């Protein structure tokens, strides 16, 4: 029997189109020939699957037709749980928000770090001339190398500079502690350019005061000191001036006493509006009558024109505290003011010889 005929027979058999004789004959064949039996079952399964597939397609078509009639959008609106817009925003964009927030936090921290906000001390620069030192160091090194090549002996350049002023005529000089801090040796230089060796005989790091004593044998008595030292605190808006060595020649600066306390309410200091620069540290701050009212010492880098000076009371304390064995005699401070009635020009001229550049090596 050809395959085509067999299939046709199977189909007729399965659909019940055979008459009784044919049917018996076909069942006989199925029993005897296992192969045809398998073919019957195979065919039955395959056409069954085909039939089911047709039904499925039809059912899906019907369901789709039903679905067309439903207002899907309205149902969706109805069943969606609507969280508040902020929750929605978070759900939709939380990864982006997180990334943005971390970048923002990082940026803020980095900015604070680089601007020095996290380290308050940075805004408070002490005015010794160490600041300019790095800039000079490379040129200095070049010079040194050249000098060595030429076989010359070089005088070591000073490490830092400040200003100091005489408190007694026999060579006691007041300056800021931070100017002479860490010094190997200290020289003072007067306006006419003469240098004298000095040593620190008393340091008060807390109030930033240092008292130097000139130990050079060429040093001559200075004569009557023209200014006096003020014991009480000065009033706000007092007209004040200073005189110091931010550069090689002395520089005068004046302004007003703007606050009775320094940075962050520090009561050691006055706040003053005198224009001062690195190198002014340790210089005298005088009022219009020629009284020493403080020692210039620092500036606020974040604000222009805000500077600080140590109150003279602390200087007087320091003088009092000088250990006796480092002195030949107890220092006697001048009490006669020779400046009170003079003009500012004359005052400055008078105090000039008593103000020194402090050079630290």
């Amino acid at each position, binding site marked *: 029997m050809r395959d085509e005929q067999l299939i*046709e027979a199977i189909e007729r058999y399965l659909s019940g189109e055979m008459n009784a004789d044919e049917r018996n004959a076909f069942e006989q064949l199925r029993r005897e020939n296992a192969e045809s039996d398998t073919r019957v079952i195979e065919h039955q399964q*395959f056409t069954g*699957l085909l039939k089911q597939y047709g039904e*499925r397609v039809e059912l899906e078509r*019907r*369901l789709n037709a039903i679905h067309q009639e439903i207002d899907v*959008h309205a149902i969706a609106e109805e069943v969606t749980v609507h969280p508040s817009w902020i929750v929605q925003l978070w759900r939709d964009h939380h990864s982006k928000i997180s990334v943005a927030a971390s970048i923002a936090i990082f940026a803020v921290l980095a900015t604070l770090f680089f601007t020095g906000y996290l380290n308050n001390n940075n805004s408070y620069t002490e005015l010794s001339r160490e600041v300019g030192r790095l800039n000079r160091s490379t040129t200095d090194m070049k010079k040194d190398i050249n000098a060595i090549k030429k076989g010359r002996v070089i005088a070591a350049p000073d490490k830092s500079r400040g200003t100091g002023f005489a408190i007694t005529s026999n060579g006691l000089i007041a300056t800021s502690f931070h100017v002479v801090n860490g010094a190997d040796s200290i020289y003072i230089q007067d306006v006419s350019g003469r240098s004298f060796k000095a040593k620190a005989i008393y340091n008060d790091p807390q109030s930033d005061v240092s008292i130097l004593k000139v130990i050079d044998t060429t040093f001559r008595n200075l004569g009557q000191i023209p200014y006096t030292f003020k014991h009480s605190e000065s009033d706000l808006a007092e007209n004040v001036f200073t005189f110091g060595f931010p550069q090689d020649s002395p520089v005068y600066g004046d302004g007003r006493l703007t606050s009775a306390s320094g940075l962050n309410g520090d009561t050691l200091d006055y706040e003053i509006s005198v224009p001062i620069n690195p190198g002014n540290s340790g210089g005298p701050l005088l009022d219009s009558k020629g009284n020493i009212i403080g020692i210039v010492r620092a500036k606020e880098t974040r604000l222009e024109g805000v500077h600080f000076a140590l109150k003279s009371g602390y200087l007087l304390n320091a003088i009092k505290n000088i250990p006796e064995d480092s002195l030949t005699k107890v220092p006697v401070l001048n009490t006669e003011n020779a400046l009170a009635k003079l003009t500012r020009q004359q005052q400055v001229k008078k105090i000039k010889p008593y103000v020194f550049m402090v050079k630290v090596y």
Partner: protein
Amino acid sequence: MSTESKSSIPTDSEIVFGILNNSENAIKRLYVAYFPMVMQLILNNNGTPDDAKDIYQEAIIVLYNKVKKGDFELNSKLKTFIYSVCRRLWLKRLSQMNRYGGDIHDFNDYLPVEDEVEEQGERDIQFTKMQSALQLLGEPCKTIIEDFYIHNRSMQEICESFGYTNADNAKTQKYKCLQRLKKLFFQQK
């Protein structure tokens, strides 16, 4: 049926008998009645309205086949059965898309329906194979096969509509088509 009962949710037995009697209306009422429930499940678990449609129709087909086979027992509510199947199907879909976070917001009780879903999945594979085999078969074979085996049209009718001169030619053609379809079907992995 009255218009009133059309709009309300049909009883479970109405639906079961409706399916058994091939009632178009019963399927429609069933479909309309529980679609919002499935929509709620899918939309609130990372799905779209189109996902809801797919999942729901699949579940209806599972129910339809179960009823037709006669092994749907009315010991659980139809609603619960549909919900459970949809839930199961959606979990499966989510894990296939790697979107399943291990947590699903439930809105109903549910039953274990793994077997039904599994069975459906296997049949779906067969049907997909059949669909592509028919596609590859091309015309006129596809129409001849569909008309004869699916739509139960007689050889005589097919012979006329395709303009074959005699029924034997049509039969031979049908036989060849069937053989090719089988080949295409079983070739597929």
